[in-house]
């Protein structure tokens, strides 16, 4: 078979795929009789209301000298690790706002960080294409720096996101600009599986974010510059379980819904969406129209512990709190007077859901807690 012939067949196949995809889209539209908001309204639900003291900033964690890019909580709920452009990871005690560790990184351009389930070590990754693991209990060297315990190298692009597999300190999933996600065995430092890549049906552009299913830790979802999100089974690396189309821009952030059957996405097209992993349907779009044509992309999202609230940070500095049921914006954290001075770049809920931590380009982190008659939503 000649090259030209092959190319022709490839073209034809691509065409067919596109037609089928369109058909699928039509079919889905037909099947989708309502969305979450419509149904909730018909059931007479009312949106969550926020009094001035219901969600308040109670701590400001100061110490970084560069933009904060990422944060993560420990499961035991009172410690936070944050990564900043000043080339440091800082481990905080969220209750006392004390720094317990300040880790100087070999590469200052860090994009992501994660706490291990046991709280013993932290992982980070960035433009150096390496995911570095630091054991918090190891001895510091002469200069007082914590040595890198393990370098997970193998990505051919920047490491955009990393997350430990729940309850396993030895496994970690990373996503990278080389269009792949990788499951690592930390003890050996080797790749266990590679999701996507050249010969597989993976993402076709940089993968920006991952989230592991809280209730079934074998499943994780990834969001990418190819404006899709994909669901993966860690045991089946060869192909994605499902691909979720719908966004019209880069999917910057994905986060599993607390019940594990849905996940949320935040995208450069300015919308957040809710997808169901069982049916593959898009359940809801969260979009707040602005007056002008400017559509600020979503950078980071997080769900409250019940899933009723969706926190979404936007590039213009807003941080909306969405009522996920009624698709209504109920609060803008970015406009509260004691909020951050710059864009909120990362969000994270503590494991018990009692506090939200936000990291910002103004170099600070803030802890917000639910107050008033409700403690946790």
């Amino acid at each position, binding site marked *: 078979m000649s090259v030209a012939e092959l190319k022709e067949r490839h073209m034809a196949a691509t065409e067919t795929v596109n037609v089928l995809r369109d058909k699928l889209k039509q079919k889905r539209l037909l099947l989708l009789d309502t969305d979450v908001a419509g149904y909730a309204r018909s059931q007479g639900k009312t949106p969550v209301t926020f009094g001035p003291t219901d969600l308040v900033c109670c701590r400001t964690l100061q110490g970084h000298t560069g933009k904060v890019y990422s944060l993560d909580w420990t499961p035991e709920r009172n410690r936070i690790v944050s990564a900043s452009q000043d080339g440091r990871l800082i481990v905080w005690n969220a209750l006392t706002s004390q720094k317990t560790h300040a880790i100087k990184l070999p590469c200052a351009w860090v994009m992501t960080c994660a706490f291990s389930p046991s709280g013993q070590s932290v992982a980070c990754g960035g433009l150096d294409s390496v995911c570095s693991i630091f054991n918090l209990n190891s001895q510091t060297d002469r200069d007082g720096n914590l040595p890198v315990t393990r370098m997970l190298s193998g990505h051919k692009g920047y490491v955009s996101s990393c997350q430990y597999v729940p309850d396993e300190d030895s496994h970690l999933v990373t996503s990278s600009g080389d269009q792949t996600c990788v499951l690592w065995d930390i003890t050996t430092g080797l790749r266990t599986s590679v999701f996507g890549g050249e010969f597989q049906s993976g993402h076709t552009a940089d993968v920006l974010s991952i989230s592991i299913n809280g209730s079934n830790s074998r499943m994780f979802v990834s969001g990418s510059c190819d404006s899709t999100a994909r669901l993966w089974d860690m045991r089946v690396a060869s192909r994605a379980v499902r691909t979720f189309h719908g966004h019209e821009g880069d999917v910057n952030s994905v986060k599993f819904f607390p019940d594990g059957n849905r996940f949320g996405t935040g995208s450069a097209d300015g919308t957040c969406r809710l997808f169901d992993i069982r049916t593959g349907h898009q359940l809801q779009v969260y979009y707040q129209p602005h007056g002008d044509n400017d559509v600020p992309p979503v950078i980071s999202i997080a769900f409250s512990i019940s899933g009723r609230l969706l926190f979404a940070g936007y590039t213009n500095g807003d941080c909306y709190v969405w009522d996920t049921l009624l698709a209504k914006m109920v609060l803008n954290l970015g406009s509260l007077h004691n909020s951050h001075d710059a864009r909120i770049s990362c969000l994270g809920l503590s494991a018990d859901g009692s506090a939200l931590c936000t990291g910002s380009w103004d170099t600070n982190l803030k802890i917000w807690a639910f107050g008033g008659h409700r*403690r946790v939503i």
Partner: protein
Amino acid sequence: MFGGIPIAAMVARASTLNKLSLPVIQPIVRSGNPEKKFSIDLKVGSESPVSEVHLGKFGSTCEDLSGNSDDGVDKEGAIGLAIGESNILDRGSSSSGELGFSDGHGDSNHLSGSSEVEDLDDEYKEDLGFGNCPNATVLDTKKSTMRSGDLEGCADEAPRQGNRVPVVTFLDCTSSDVASEEGDDGAVVFPDRPVVADDTKKGACYRCHKRNRFGEKEVCLVCGAKYCIKCLLRAMGSMPEGRKCITCIGYRIDESKRGTLGKCSRMLKKLLTDDVIKQIMSSEILCEVNQLPPNLICVNDKPLSIEELVLLQSCPNPPKKLKPGKYWYDKVSGFWGKEGDKPCQIISPQLAVGYTIRQDASNGNTNVQINNREITKPELWMLQAAGIHCEGNPHFWVTADGSYQHEGMNYVMGKLWDKKRVKIVCTALSLPFPSGTANTIGEEADNNTDNINSKNLDQKTMNKLLLVGSDHSGTCTVFKQAKILYNVPFSEDERQNIKFMIQRNLYSYIGILLEGRERFEEDYLVEMRRQRIDQPSSSSANANQVDEKNIYSISPRLKAFSSWLLQIMMSGNLGAIFPAATREYAPLVEELWRDKAFQATYTRRDELLMLPRVADYFLNRAVEISRMDYEPCEMDILYAEGITSSNGVASMEFSFSNSSRDGYMEPVDQNNHLVRYQLIRVHADSLGENCKWLEMFEDVDLVVYCVSLIDYDVFYEDNSGVCTNKMLASKKLFTNIVTHPNFAEKDFLLILSKFDLLEEKIEHVPLTQCDWFQDFNPVISLYPQNNNRNNPSLAQRAFYYIAVKYKRLFTSITGRKLFVSPVTGLEADSVDKALKYGREILRWEEDIHAFSMNSTESMEPSTSL
């Protein structure tokens, strides 16, 4: 801005102060006169009717709240907020009623109640009962009640003391109304915190009240509270502004403790790691609220502005131990002293600080004047000792170098500081004497303030240059060259990596040559056979001879090595095997290099297109390089292909050396050597086409984009099999970066690299190979050897042409000008020139408004060679 930051401390709303029955020290109330408000508190607190009303009210709410307070109390350890429903019901936003204590400080911050008080334990009720009492008593009571709880809580990280809830408190929403900024000239005024009444016994810790005279203590810079090693971290928290109680954060430090800024006790060093200490101390020194408040310093009756203070502290001879107060300053001679006092120092003259000096500034009564100031007695004695006649109440005019003359007389009578006795007299009378010879050396200036300035300067003047370009565009060479140029050493790791890389590359070059050899051998054989057919007369023996004589054939041993190497190269495992196998194969390389067949191939290396140009440089020294003990020299490093350090990003900090000659540079100003630059090199290809990573570099000052001039005829095939011209790919990347929203306002410097190679290439390959350069049709000079300005060479024309193409592209996107500089990466001078040009651009930006007109003219030499 510091007051606006919510801190784990209690805050009460100013507007509700009059309802307050408890004498509470208000930690964060940004106002011009906090002391005054404080005293109002006290007054209100002691007015019995008000507090009675309040008490009654409290009683009722207490009943109402009995249910609420329970669930507040029960929830321990979490970051829960103990805000009762009553708050929400109560007048919405004005409710800032909040009970809580950050457990770290036991001195004064129990309650900051506004309208409602909730969750009261017995001890608080007790406190309330004392509401009308004087302040000290209340504090005392509190302390006694605190003590028992604190002692047990000391070791425990998550505090659970008694039945109290560890509540994370917060700055209330409404407090920003209060925290509006006040102050002159827009300067931020940081409130002064009243010093806490010291009722603690000597030697006791202010928090746990344990007495330990000999145990070291750390002192709060604001209120002077002392804490022992156990309580320190709880009382001071994460120390975002240095050693201050959590309640004191945001307050000005006690001026008497200014000297200890940045100097921590051994105790703290024991407690925290060096790294953390360093950070805390640096924030202590640098944080805005700890700086000397400029408006408290009056020079010649004028409160200083920030700029004046900086000017004063950054001059070569700054005033020592500057404290808030009133000073006089003699601009002409540099005399400096406290108002109403004799001079205490001679600082740098001619600083534009303060108004003109008053005649009675130093409160002299001698009728003798120096520079319009009536001098004091000691000064008069000094003058007399110097042998200067002071009869008739003369008015002197003394300049900085000590030369003095009568007012209005243009005749220098002598130099004051040159007289021998003056020095002795000055010391005796404790009058200042200029340090050094000409009052210029400020070495002994107060270290403290000096440090601040240099550090501030450091942080401000770190200019970031982003060096980016597509694959093989020369960024790497420029980066390495800059490293060598500005004396940034390669680390041991880097050298090791480079060594391995060079060795690995060497084997790949050898591989390419061996592959070529095979081809040449075959060609030669074919040629020979053809010759034999052409000349059938020659005998068969002859033919055998030909085979043997084939100059491209090698010994079986080398042949084995050759096929092995080629096989590895085919499978793409070269990186995995070398340089680990270097030791084993070094002798073989030597043998191979001496082999004449190999040498014969080497002489025909021009025919091997795969062989990169730099291969020559290394192959010549193949034997040396393949040895184990080979150490790459700087030239080797420069020539080495590939990336030096980590995969995608490498960065270095440097400053331009002053000694170098600059073509278009104005005289280098004094601070110049302080200006640090950070060159960040990004390998675009390894970071993805979507340029997601660009966001990380949003704070760079200048983007240096590298384009290889010889890319115009290079094509490569991407994943989907489409053939792309590298120049067009480079153009696309350039467009991507320029149009990136974060880079909209950035300046760009285009570096066109590999000019030396262009000169060679353009003779053989026309520029029009690239679609973008279709309309390049230079007028070919009749005398190509006549290579001067009026008659530029083809390569120069091509360079101009490409530069203009990029400039037009840039202007069409942004409407601004693109700066262009040619570079030959291997020549140190040209890289130096380009980076200095980058520095020039940054300077231009600084005063672009001043001469925006000129910049267009000065653009022209930008593309000159």
